[in-house]
């Protein structure tokens, strides 16, 4: 079982990202479970969502306490939230930032991957919502879900043109990571 | 098929008090609405005296569940009829007393009116909680003695004005609303017939004297129900789509004292100076009503 925790701020599509990822994993023929941290948080407040992906049924409805992967939708979260808590030793952190990993000042020797998802989203979607872009990066970096499954997942979630735009952003990030 | 007693949709044998204005009001309303009617009823005297197991006085399909939800239950009935294509089967009437309508049931009433549900709500207004032993309600008039607004050394009875429920209802901009009194049965029945012929939410507030709660002679129920109208304390009118479409004008307005003197709940107002001042204050309310509604051509106190 692989466990992913997504950190972001209210309004950045953190919950949607987890949903899309779980549905994508399902399309890949895997069992997936996703849920948000169920806050009553409003726009801008730190929020989390959780995804578990496994070959077998996941019975425990619990949050992700020992993630294999972290997706950080907003680098400012490093300042106020213990986003790294429980991350497995060989865990991977994907951060939305235009900085390089070494510039982030994260010690502990975790693998870090950075991608300027907000910039990509602004360019393609015209809105600073980095969630789908980061999923493209996640697929490219981990191979836990296929880019085809994410495509299917996004198409199932958003209407026509919005799906197309999101896909474009997702694929751009996927390519960038693959290269 | 069993035969109706005297063509009444509320059968006798019910256990309302002698001279009960509410029993009369309900019979007049139901007979005017006709047998194609489904009734929901709030908890209260009307429900208690008409449905003591295993006997029912109702000749129409009828349901009671709680005190404050008659309007909401009626909305459910109306929604079910609509959803199942049975709209033509029956009109829906929700009934309640003044407490069940103006106080605890006001929220549900507002919901039903606001949604535009096809329901006629009838409030039988006897100005206090009679079922539980004459406690004050939001429709109890000023100066009235009730068991929770008692007259005492430092109390002149109920201190609050009667809640202007018809105006609250009118603010929902419903297609039809009216006030009525069992003192004027033809007027009441005409209003009920008109209300049930209109689609959407309707409201009628019927003034129904309570001999037990008011300390009045049961034989004078009708007289009292006429007098309140004639004093201008309870103007009779209809509003359709927000416009005043009928008003019962008064040829000669009667002083409130004439209405008060027939009821023990106001007896104290005649005994002290303070009581007389309170009576004057209430007379002023009647005068204001007369002027605002234009009930008489010469709106001045007799």
């Amino acid at each position: 079982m692989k466990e992913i925790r997504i950190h972001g701020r209210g309004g950045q599509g953190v919950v949607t990202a987890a949903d899309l990822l779980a549905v994508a994993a399902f399309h890949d023929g895997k069992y997936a479970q996703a849920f948000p941290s169920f806050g009553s948080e409003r726009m801008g407040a730190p929020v989390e969502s959780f995804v578990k992906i496994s070959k077998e049924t996941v019975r425990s409805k619990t949050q992700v306490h020992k993630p294999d992967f972290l997706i950080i939708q907003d680098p400012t979260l490093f300042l106020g939230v213990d986003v790294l808590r429980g991350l497995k030793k060989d865990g991977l952190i994907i951060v939305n930032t235009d900085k390089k990993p070494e510039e982030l000042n994260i010690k502990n020797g975790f693998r870090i991957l950075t991608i300027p998802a907000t910039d990509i989203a602004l360019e393609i979607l015209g809105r600073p919502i980095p969630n789908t872009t980061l999923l493209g990066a996640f697929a490219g970096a981990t191979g836990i879900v296929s880019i085809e499954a994410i495509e299917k997942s996004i198409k199932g979630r958003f209407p026509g043109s919005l799906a197309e735009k999101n896909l474009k952003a997702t694929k751009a990030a996927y390519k960038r990571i693959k290269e | 098929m069993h035969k109706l007693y005297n063509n009444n949709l509320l059968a006798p044998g019910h256990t309302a008090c002698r001279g009960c204005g509410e029993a009369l009001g309900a019979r007049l309303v139901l007979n005017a609405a006709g047998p194609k009617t489904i009734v929901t009823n709030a908890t209260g005297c009307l429900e208690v005296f008409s449905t003591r197991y295993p006997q029912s006085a109702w000749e129409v399909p009828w349901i009671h569940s709680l005190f404050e939800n008659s309007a909401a239950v009626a909305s459910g009935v109306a929604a079910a009829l609509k959803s199942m294509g049975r709209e033509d089967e029956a009109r829906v009437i929700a009934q309640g007393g003044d407490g069940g309508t103006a106080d605890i049931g006001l929220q549900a009433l507002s919901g039903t009116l606001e949604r535009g549900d096809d329901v006629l709500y009838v409030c039988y207004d006897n100005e206090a909680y009679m079922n539980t032993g004459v406690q004050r309600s939001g429709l109890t008039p000023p100066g009235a003695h009730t068991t929770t607004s008692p007259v005492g050394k430092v109390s002149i009875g109920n201190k609050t004005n009667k809640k202007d429920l018809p105006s609250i209802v009118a603010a929902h901009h419903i297609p039809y609303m009216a006030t009525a009194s069992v003192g004027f049965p033809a007027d009441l029945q005409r209003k009920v017939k008109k209300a049930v012929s209109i689609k959407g939410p309707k409201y009628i507030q019927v003034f129904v004297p309570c001999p037990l709660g008011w300390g009045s002679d049961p034989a004078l129920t009708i007289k009292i129900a006429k007098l309140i109208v004639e004093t201008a304390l309870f103007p009779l009118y209809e509003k359709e789509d927000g416009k005043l479409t009928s008003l019962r004008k008064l040829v000669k307005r009667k002083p409130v004292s004439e209405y008060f003197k027939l009821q023990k709940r106001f007896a104290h107002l005649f005994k002290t100076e303070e009581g007389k001042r309170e009576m004057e204050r209430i007379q002023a309310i009647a005068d204001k009503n007369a002027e605002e509604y234009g009930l008489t051509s010469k709106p001045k106190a007799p």
Partner: protein
Amino acid sequence: MSIEVFIYPGTSVENKTGSWRVFWPKYLHDKCIGCGNCVTFCPEGCVAGKGRGREATYEADMDFCKGCGICAEECPVNDIEMVREEV
């Protein structure tokens, strides 16, 4: 055991409230003008009549009449008299 969640319509007629009376309305059939007030205003709905106008004869059903006296009070020609019940 069977208790239904409903009861049948109009079954209250089995409950004869006539026993509540202290006074009973004596319909004199003398000056009646057939206005029907006694029928309309009866809270029990237990007054019925035959004929029209001055030929009308109304009676209250003593099975149900509680003796409130409304009919006598509202009779415009005083053709109904309230009489003390005797045991």
